């Protein structure tokens, strides 16, 4: 079995984003997706802090403190980009105008519940940002995460033990082992990495999976 590394996961997600899509990339792992969007597709990236048409990182020395993304990293703009204030930005999110939100996760449940903002630790300082708005607002919520914790436990669970970001909001899960659709009747495995049989994925995951493999 060949697990996907972070770049391969980003490339896998990027492949599924169609021409003309409006997309928000969460901070962390999802931000990598921007580097792998297929050339020749016009895909418009949204940033919570009031930008449509986020472009690549600026060249060294070309950074502008007034031009940053939601992760507060310097960016550039695509031709055709626009600026707007925060209430408009979240109207785009909450008002179901964004086609995709791509989010990291600690856990996803079989019902599509998402936990990605708080470990619940007593000493942890909670920070939520725009995650809860994206979870309820985007037309499709795609999650990117490693399939297993460092201890080898599945991050796809019967019920989230971490505090929820949103209930029943995840549409598809991309992990380093598989692509899994969340549907009303359960989790459908549509793809596994090379050399990983469905039965082995099922053993690692723990919760019931359905075999709907498009390509093995």
């Amino acid at each position: 079995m060949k697990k996907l590394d972070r770049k391969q996961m980003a490339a896998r997600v990027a492949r599924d984003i169609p021409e003309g899509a409006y997309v928000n990339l969460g901070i962390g792992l999802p931000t990598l997706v921007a580097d792998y969007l297929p050339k020749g597709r016009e895909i418009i990236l949204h940033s919570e802090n009031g930008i449509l048409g986020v472009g690549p990182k600026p060249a060294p020395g070309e950074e502008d403190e007034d031009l940053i993304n939601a992760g507060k990293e310097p960016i550039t703009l695509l031709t055709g980009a626009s600026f707007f204030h925060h209430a408009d930005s979240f109207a785009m999110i909450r008002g179901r105008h964004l086609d995709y939100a791509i989010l990291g996760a600690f856990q996803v449940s079989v019902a599509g519940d998402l936990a990605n903002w708080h470990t619940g630790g007593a000493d942890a300082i909670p920070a939520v940002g725009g995650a809860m708005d994206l979870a309820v607002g985007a037309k499709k919520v795609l999650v990117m995460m490693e399939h297993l914790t460092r201890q080898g436990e599945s991050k796809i669970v019967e019920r989230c033990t971490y505090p929820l970001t949103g209930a029943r909001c995840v549409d598809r899960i991309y992990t380093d082992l598989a692509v899994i659709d969340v549907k009303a009747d359960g989790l459908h495995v549509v793809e596994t990495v090379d050399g990983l049989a469905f039965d082995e994925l099922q053993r690692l995951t723990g919760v019931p999976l359905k075999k709907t493999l498009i390509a093995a």
Partner: protein
Amino acid sequence: MINKLVASPEAALADVPDGATVMIHGFGNAGMPAVLIDALIAQGARELTIVNNNAGNADTGLAALIGAKRVRKIVCSFPRQADSWHFDRLYRAGEIELELVPQGTLAERIRAAGAGIGAFFTPTAYGTRLAEGKETRRIGDRDYVLEYPIHADYALIKADRADRWGNLTYRKSARNFGPIMAAAAKCTVVQVRETVELGELDPEHIVTPGIFVQRVVRVAAPLRKAA
């Protein structure tokens, strides 16, 4: 003649009382009115409630205000950052209160205050611990949480250009919370890079009309590059 231009940041903030609710514009450092915050620190008001997306970065601006122990409570969406050590220290010591609000709900609560809305239902946070204890309602086929506006005594804003009526333009993603905070506060104080004659700002390009602005201070700070 209307003239909202004020001679100095100190003069613009002289009347901020202890216990005031102060909105501070900015997303990280983009749009943060650092000169006004420095003047607020020097002015000495205490027990402030601060509304901002974050809880300060490193040792300047909002972080310095928090570090100076002038803030009793902060209302924000994302306090935890690699360089939010002033907030982290006071929060863990129980010396600052945190009201954590999802970012879109924060923006809409600010917008609602400026727009005269009494409360609103949002789907955000339904079923999560940030909605615990709040009124909910099922409308159509979705569940919503009742949220109330956030009003402020002052808003401190950084804009790009202003005229003497207080009409404002912003620069790039430094617009963020500026337009909605300007409308939500009783007294909106703006630091700008440049002041221009009435009529020089194209009416098609004015982002915050002067009705939402009370005081403008020109700050001759050069544009800095991001770190």
